[in-house]
């Protein structure tokens, strides 16, 4: 089989000011994973390496650069699957780690479970040597601006239309 590494940086209405950085980011991530593969790494090693590269790039909504919850926190989700064994590992709503996909891989390889969430995921990560980082490290000015705009816009809408229900979230994964 001709080996291949494919990556994506998210499907959404990517604004023009992010087009170039986003393309450079996915190209770099594809190169990273392909390099791991050609150096003898497994397909899991390559997939993890590419996603780590994307998580570390603040232009993408994952790892550093993640968007904010309504409470101005970063909560991240990740999964990794080995197609040979169909083993899977995942984390949900994990906080304060640079690379959630690395914790997902630890879940796959070190537990009998598929997914750990919230505090449990963070405790598991810490127990396996994953260092917690200051939450500020993960938060970009763009993420703060986007949340501020969201809150301002939705409060205006609710005032104008006298809505009383909680506003819907915007954007998507």
């Amino acid at each position, binding site marked *: 089989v001709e080996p291949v590494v*494919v990556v994506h940086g998210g499907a959404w*209405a990517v604004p023009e000011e992010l087009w170039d950085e986003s393309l450079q980011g996915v190209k770099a991530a594809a190169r990273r994973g392909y390099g791991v593969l050609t150096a003898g790494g497994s397909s899991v090693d390559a997939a993890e390496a590419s*996603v780590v590269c994307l998580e570390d790039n603040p232009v993408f*909504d*994952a790892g550093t650069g993640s968007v904010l919850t309504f*409470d101005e926190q970063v*909560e991240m989700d990740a999964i990794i699957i080995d197609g040979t064994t169909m083993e899977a590992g995942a984390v949900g709503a994990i906080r304060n780690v640079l690379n959630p996909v690395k914790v997902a891989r630890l879940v796959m390889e070190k537990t009998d479970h598929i997914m750990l969430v919230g505090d449990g995921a963070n405790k598991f990560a810490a127990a396996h040597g994953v260092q917690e980082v200051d939450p500020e490290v993960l938060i970009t000015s763009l993420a703060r601006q986007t949340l501020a705009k*969201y809150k301002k816009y939705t409060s205006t809408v609710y005032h104008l239309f006298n809505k009383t229900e909680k506003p819907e979230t915007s954007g998507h*994964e």
Partner: protein
Amino acid sequence: TVGCVVVDREGHTSCATSTGGITAKMPGRVGDTPIVGAGGFADDQVGAVSTTGHGEAIMKACLARHITSVMGTGESVKSSIQNGLAHMESRIKGFGGAIAVSCKGEVGTHFSTPRMTWAYIQAGKLHYGIHPNQHVTEDL
């Protein structure tokens, strides 16, 4: 959201997907990304998929599993992704995108949102794009 799918020389497949979620999400809300068969799926007998888009819709549609199921019937990878996204749009009014690779090394990318950045390397060439129907190729 970001993601990756891989097939190696022996036909071993893997996928990984990671996300910070949605702006202003309810604390504790978890989307499709960490759900097997929604945010990703991999099976050496068929291939691997990573998805992105409206998380709740992707979960309802089990999008990654849907796409691999169609791939398993012999459909092309790209056509399988289009099938999955069309199903999600028609049944749930959800939009998104996906990347996939078959166990034989066939690649597919497609999205129903305005844009999706993607790239892949195969046989000494780097392929990438962001706009619908854009496909740029460079020699490595």
